[in-house]
């Protein structure tokens, strides 16, 4: 066990020394990896944030019934009574046009504009909490409510969220395709980096094999090197995106303030961050493994014919 650990410790040390031996080249490679990883990861972050919004919307399925501005108190009471008798809905809330006006004046700072209008342009509204029911049932309720007297409009508030969800599914597919494409690019870059390293250390590898080094002993530092470069690229990509989100949130908070709401972009969760790190490290490892397998057999051939 201690021999196994010392072999791996030595390999890791060799890989770190190799990184430190050519700091500029190593840093440039890591920057390239981070840029390659930033694009799909950035899109993924954006999609996850949008998914969260759409998720919140679809979790609370709502239907809004807007009454005619000429609806009387009796009309309101009639609709109220009908809604109370509906077993398929979870509950509802009535917002009178007077309360809606007050809220609008308070929230959007449009008091002066509203005051100048002379009369209240807002309708009485029933907001129905539909709970978790099927789209089919929502359509039936919508069709039924639509023909009630004094009902001007019926809006199902989750429609947009469903459309967004569908778009997010397409976006997710784009992220997978981009990640696959860039993943292959990353593997190829690591393959070439390791190829150059093997060429540089050809004599040492050849000698090591002749004096009893196993293939895994020779492979190990290169595998660590590839994995470290991949993981370092992921870590740098994470940092780049962190600062990008920080900057975007400043701009978004200003925009959200104008619409009297709050919205902030969230970075990757710890779980997703770890997956990014492992995924990128694994790609580096695969690139290195491929390169070493291909070029070590060449060294075997060279030492045989020399």
């Amino acid at each position, binding site marked *: 066990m201690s021999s196994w650990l010392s072999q791996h410790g030595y390999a890791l040390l060799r890989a770190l020394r190799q990184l430190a031996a050519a700091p500029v080249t190593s840093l440039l490679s890591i920057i390239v990896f981070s840029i390659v990883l930033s694009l799909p990861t950035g899109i993924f972050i954006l999609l996850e944030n949008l998914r969260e919004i759409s998720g919140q919307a679809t979790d609370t399925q709502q239907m809004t019934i807007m009454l005619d501005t000429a609806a009387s108190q009796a009309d309101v009471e009639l609709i109220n009574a009908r809604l109370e008798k509906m077993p398929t809905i979870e509950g509802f809330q009535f917002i009178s046009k007077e309360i809606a006006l007050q809220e609008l004046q308070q929230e959007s700072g449009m008091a002066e504009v509203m005051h100048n209008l002379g009369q209240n342009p807002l309708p009485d509204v029933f907001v129905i909490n539909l709970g978790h029911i099927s789209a089919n049932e929502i359509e039936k309720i919508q069709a039924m409510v639509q023909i009630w007297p004094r009902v001007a409009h019926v809006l199902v508030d989750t429609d947009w969220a469903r459309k967004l969800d569908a778009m997010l599914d397409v976006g997710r597919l784009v992220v997978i395709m981009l990640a696959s494409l860039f993943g292959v690019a990353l593997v190829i870059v690591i393959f070439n980096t390791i190829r150059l390293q093997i060429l540089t250390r050809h*004599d040492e590898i050849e*000698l090591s094999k002749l*004096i*009893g080094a196993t293939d895994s002993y020779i492979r190990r530092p290169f595998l660590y090197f590839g994995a470290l470069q991949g993981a370092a690229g992921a870590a740098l990509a994470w940092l780049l995106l962190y600062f990008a989100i920080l900057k975007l949130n400043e701009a978004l908070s200003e925009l959200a303030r104008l619409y009297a709401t709050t919205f902030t972009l969230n970075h990757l969760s710890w779980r997703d961050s770890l997956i990014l790190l492992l995924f990128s490290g694994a790609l580096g490892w695969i690139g290195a493994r491929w390169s070493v397998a291909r070029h070590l057999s060449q060294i075997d051939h060279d030492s045989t014919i020399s």
Partner: protein
Amino acid sequence: MAAMISLNNVSKFYPGGYEALKSITLSISQGELIFFSGHSGAGKSTLLKLMTAIERPTSGSIVVGQQNIDSLRRSAIPYLRRNIGMIFQEQKILYDRNVFANVMLPLQVTAFDTRASASRVRAALDKVGLLNKEKADPVTLSGGEKQRLCIARAVVHRPTILIADEPTANLDSGYARDIMAVFESFNQVGVTVLISTHDRILLDMTQHRVLELRHGKLVA
């Protein structure tokens, strides 16, 4: 005495039909010091490469220690080589590290205990008279010192067999005698030593068995 190495009817053909070795049969006892002589191209190096599984025979069988080389799996070759110390004709010194690190390499590949390794390396350097040069850059060493560095590297892991391919080539006779004295000292502690050489002075001096190869055939 038990045979440490035995070859039975071994032949080696290279692609294109060149026959490097023809039906070689021989036995080398444990603790023996033996010379392989012959002109360049006689097959001395090929013979040594077959014994260390750098090459595989085209026909015949080779047993080193208790291991039959022909049936040895590729993954088992490193473990065979760990019992053999090799001194290469082209030296294969690594010039990106000092003398100490060069000699340390065989212990590193076998994951030998780090603390014990340092004393092993110094003991090997002491044996070949290079202890005062452990921190030296190999490029600053003389021809004889470089060869002694290679010997220290070959014996640091205390192999049972020492194989040297033209160890005195390009050395003047004074250095060559020193190098031979080192081989003799290892042989006296039980190491089986195989030396290939075409150095006539060295061969005339020796009391040990000399096998001559001519055009791939064992003639004496």
